[in-house]
């Protein structure tokens, strides 16, 4: 299951969507908004997404999880709009017969999402604002030379 929503993410609900009798465990990653960035206090966070492309890529990640690991169910949910500090911006839950597959798939899902899925976070400070950049997203462009030719 993949979803992008403005409403607060309820982790219990996402967990419930992946718990099945065949699974021996669930691994959950919860990304929460923090109150600092680059040594400055963050007072608010705003997320936006290129929703149709982001959903398509999240579905692609989901498919890849089933292809690479022996898992039973997966959920990838991202929140957009204002996300108050300490609340979840992303929740990924994976159930599997055995924990190694659940851990590996969950890690792959969050790592890939942060690299590739078109979602952005603006951090609002006491004295200004800035778009955040995931370090892995910037490296990737240089590695693949997809950016402007040098």
């Amino acid at each position, binding site marked *: 299951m993949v979803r992008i929503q403005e409403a607060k993410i309820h982790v219990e609900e996402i967990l419930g969507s992946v718990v099945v009798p065949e699974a021996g465990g669930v691994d959950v990653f919860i*990304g929460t908004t923090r109150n600092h960035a680059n040594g400055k206090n963050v007072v608010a966070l705003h*997320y*936006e*997404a*290129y929703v*149709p*492309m*982001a959903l*398509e890529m999240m579905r692609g990640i989901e498919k890849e999880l089933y292809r690479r690991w022996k898992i039973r169910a997966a959920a990838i949910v*991202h929140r957009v709009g204002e996300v108050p500090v300490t609340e979840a*911006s*992303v929740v990924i839950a994976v159930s599997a017969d055995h924990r190694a597959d659940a851990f590996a798939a969950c890690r792959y899902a*969050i790592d890939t*999402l*942060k*690299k*590739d*899925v*078109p*979602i*952005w*976070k*603006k951090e609002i400070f006491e004295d200004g604002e800035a*778009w*955040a*950049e*995931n370090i892995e*997203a*910037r490296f990737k*462009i240089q590695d693949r030379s*997809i*950016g*402007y*030719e*040098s």
Partner: protein
Amino acid sequence: MKIFVKFFASAREAVGSDNVQVAVKEGATANDVLELFGSQFETMNRLRPYVRVAVNQSYVVNDHVLHEGDEVAIIPPVSGG
């Protein structure tokens, strides 16, 4: 030919618009679109080394050739998660 260009996050702020319809010559590439907006907006030009381009919701290389009606998205470094 006509194409539709979408801008997100810092790219949207750089050009002051989230959605622009432009006419480009036959055979125009993703890079030509970056060139077009980079030449008009200094902030967009500074972003160019870091943005990726998606056409019809898939990432493409910069020499990807565009077609009539394509949806071209300018994707600055992502920061989801």
